[in-house]
């Protein structure tokens, strides 16, 4: 039964897509694992990585004294040669706990942007240029 199912025709159809999907998946995993931005400034950690057609951003505030913190996402607009607030903000960008980091997806569609973390003590600016 098994031999009948996996004849040469089935193999010719199955093998190419399995190889392509495996290669693609491996490349994506490797890219997401190793090709990302990571910086920490006085207890504020920012990670960002390019996810196909948009950036995914992770912001964590590690010090209780800096809470609550407000996050701003600004995208570089070439025509205006300046950073402008991004249009697609899906949720509140307030971080109120050290245990729950902020995760932002699909807000930025260019690889050049900045994250500003506004706290009661100090403002932190992270300039990000993804590859």
């Amino acid at each position, binding site marked *: 039964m098994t031999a009948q199912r996996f*004849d040469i*025709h*089935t193999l*010719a*159809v199955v093998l*190419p*897509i*399995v190889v*392509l*999907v495996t290669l*693609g*998946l491996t*490349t*994506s*995993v490797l*890219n*997401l694992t190793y090709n990302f931005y990571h910086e920490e400034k006085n207890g504020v950690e920012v990670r960002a990585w390019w*996810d*196909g*057609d*948009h950036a*995914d951003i992770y912001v964590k505030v590690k010090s209780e004294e800096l809470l609550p913190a407000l996050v701003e996402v600004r995208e570089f607009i070439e025509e205006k040669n300046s950073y402008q607030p991004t*249009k*697609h*903000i*899906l949720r509140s960008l307030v971080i109120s706990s050290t245990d729950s980091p902020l*995760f932002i*997806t*699909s807000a930025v569609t260019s690889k050049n942007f900045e994250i500003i973390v506004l706290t009661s003590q100090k403002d932190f600016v992270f300039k990000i240029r993804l590859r």
Partner: protein
Amino acid sequence: MKKDRSTRRVVGGRRRSRLRKVKHFLWVIGPGIIAGAAGNDAGSIGSLASGGALYGCSILWALLLSLIFSYFIQDMCVRIGVVSRKGLIEHARERYGFKVGFIFLLVFLAVNFATVIAGIAGMAASLELLAWVAGLYFPYTILVPILTFCVWLFLLKEGYGPIERVFSIVSLTMFVYVVVAFMANPSPEEIIRGSLWITEELTFDYLVYVSAIIGATISPYMQFYLVSAIVDKRVRIRDLLSERVGSILGITISGIQAFAIVIVAAYVLFPRGIIVETAKDVALSLVPFLGFSAFTLFAIGFFSSSLNGTGVIISSSGYSFSEFFGVERGLSKRVREAFTFYLMFTICFMIGYGALILGITPIQAMVYSMVISFILSPMVVYLILRVANDSEVMGKHANNFVMKIVGWAIFVILLLLDFILLMDVVITYMP
């Protein structure tokens, strides 16, 4: 006592017979519903929403016109499939010879390859957003290969019946667009006025969007899929009426959904001057104005549209390629029985996914798909008309005088609109 039993048996028999008839009717109408709903694929949603965002309800008449065109074209396709029992590519080869038929096939496959890129990307993008709403993180670049493989495996492993059932249900889930449209609180008078009168000045830019909306609703792969699926199911002539009803139902369902998408854009994006290019942009733009529930519903609809569109495009590629070479085809066949069909089907998936790996964005793919579609659409309608008008092939089911006039009028209008779109592409993309 005996009388009671026999009466019960008769009533039970009648019920069973009625149930059988209903089941048979549902079986027959499947291809029409799926083909109709597939018109609202990921790329089409982008065109419909950008038209609504730029021109509000004043673009609705174009959508209504395209739906009327679709009724006529799909009806001819249904009759061709049921009566001639041959796919459109097979007719093209028989009428115009191997070379012309082959060019026709290549252009058709090029449209499908470009459209499937947007479909795969749409599925992954919508699922990423939905997962994110649920508090989960599934990166888009990981979802693309996983979804490609899952959809490919589902189409390969399941027979025609389960695939049709799943896609029919998926088509119905797209009604979430209607719910979102109601959330936008539209004005019925404005919708009726926009649907029945041309309230905007007919500028070149406006006509480009009119053409894009008509092009988005009448996609060539819908017609190819419809004819091939009917042939594959071996629908008999006595079921022709039910099949025609199925086609009307499919276009009505897809039309309601398309109207809802334009209305959402007209009432949420148009007043605020928000310009969108893709369905993902629309979903994201809804959050500040209609809230998370509207965003989630739109994302569900976007996923269903992308899944349905991808399935239909992939299947129609496999059908057309096999039809052209006269080999076995069909989703109910095993791989070794319909090797060419499944090979083309797999190649289509590989090209779609491969293009995304190479960095072609869904927007680029949409533009390529639209450009090639402009060239193909009038050719397809011409072929459909020639076959449907031919009484030698169609017998008493050939187009009557009125249908011929309407058919040629649709062809001329499509040709004119295609010319406008091609002019726009030349102006926009030529250095």
